[in-house]
């Protein structure tokens, strides 16, 4: 009888183990992290605490970036459009460049990508907080090429991590991608595997 119970237990555990193998490991646990930042409407938000309870797809951008960052933002918009059900998903874009990316600048940028307020948030804040937030997510950015414009103003480009990531409902990073390269279907498949 004891042998039979052991056999039944084993049969029960095997499917569980197999199911667990499909679940991605936690890459980074931000469930206890808390950063007071501001969104595109200048409202204070607590990242990632205020975003728990839904899957969060995060992209890292700066609005003066003409080539790679717009591709990342377009991919986030496309994922949102292509999801059959986006009721449990939200999108966050965090700027590398809080000095120039004020809430109003981010708001205009979002309009350019037709990102609705309901599902999309853009995040900026004071430079020190944004730097710490980015570091906590292993995101690097640095000023690379400074120029003086015709108006005598300083302008610059940045070298930065090219990343999109997916966090689960507990604010744990579960997937990371090369942001401007990953295919939208790939992100959607991974998200569905997490659900």
């Amino acid at each position, binding site marked *: 009888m004891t042998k039979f119970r052991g056999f039944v237990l084993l049969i029960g555990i095997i499917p569980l183990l197999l199911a667990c193998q499909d679940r991605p490991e936690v890459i980074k646990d931000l469930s206890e992290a808390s950063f007071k930042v501001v969104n595109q409407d200048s409202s204070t938000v607590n990242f990632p605490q205020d975003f728990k309870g839904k899957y969060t797809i995060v992209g890292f951008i700066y*609005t003066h970036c*003409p*080539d790679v960052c717009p591709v990342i933002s377009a991919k986030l918009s496309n994922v949102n459009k292509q999801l059959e059900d986006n009721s449990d998903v939200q999108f966050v874009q965090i700027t590398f460049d809080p000095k120039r990316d004020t809430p109003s*600048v981010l708001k205009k940028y979002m309009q350019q990508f037709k990102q609705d307020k309901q599902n999309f948030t853009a995040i900026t804040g004071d430079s020190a907080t944004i730097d710490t937030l980015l570091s906590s997510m292993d995101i690097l950015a640095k000023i690379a090429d400074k120029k003086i414009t*015709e108006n005598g103003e300083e302008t610059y480009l940045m070298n930065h991590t090219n990343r999109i990531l997916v966090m689960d409902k507990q604010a744990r990073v579960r997937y990371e991608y090369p942001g401007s390269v990953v295919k939208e279907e790939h992100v959607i498949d991974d998200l569905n595997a997490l659900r």
Partner: protein
Amino acid sequence: MYRILLSVLASILFLSCNSDKNSDPEVLSGQIEIKNKWMRPANADANSAGYLSIINGTAKTDTLLSVSSDAFEVAEVHESYETEAGLSGMRPAKNLDIAPGDSLVLKPGGLHLMLMSARQPITENDSITVNFNFKKAGERTVRIPVRSSN
């Protein structure tokens, strides 16, 4: 006699035309074509990128020397690249030679028109004028339409 004189003159003219073609390496047998053009919208003072293909339909290698547009303070050809530290960066592109029959393709994530500091907002369905300066073909001016960013 008149007919013979006429045919001799025609032959001389024909040969001299041929000889001119061979002796002038700058004569272009075809055209530089710029197609598949589009760019992203830009808010005032913001940057944008333009994408297109330049096809060298001439018999000689040509080089894109510079670009300019009145719609932006600065226009250059840049390339996105990965730095040694694994970061995404941008730098001015050099040696933009296009061999005969070849194309120079500017596309997202690679070579692109780097359009810096828009003089005024440029929105979807607008278009801007961009001048391309080639070493052999000289100046080419095209309109680049603005497409949705998505």
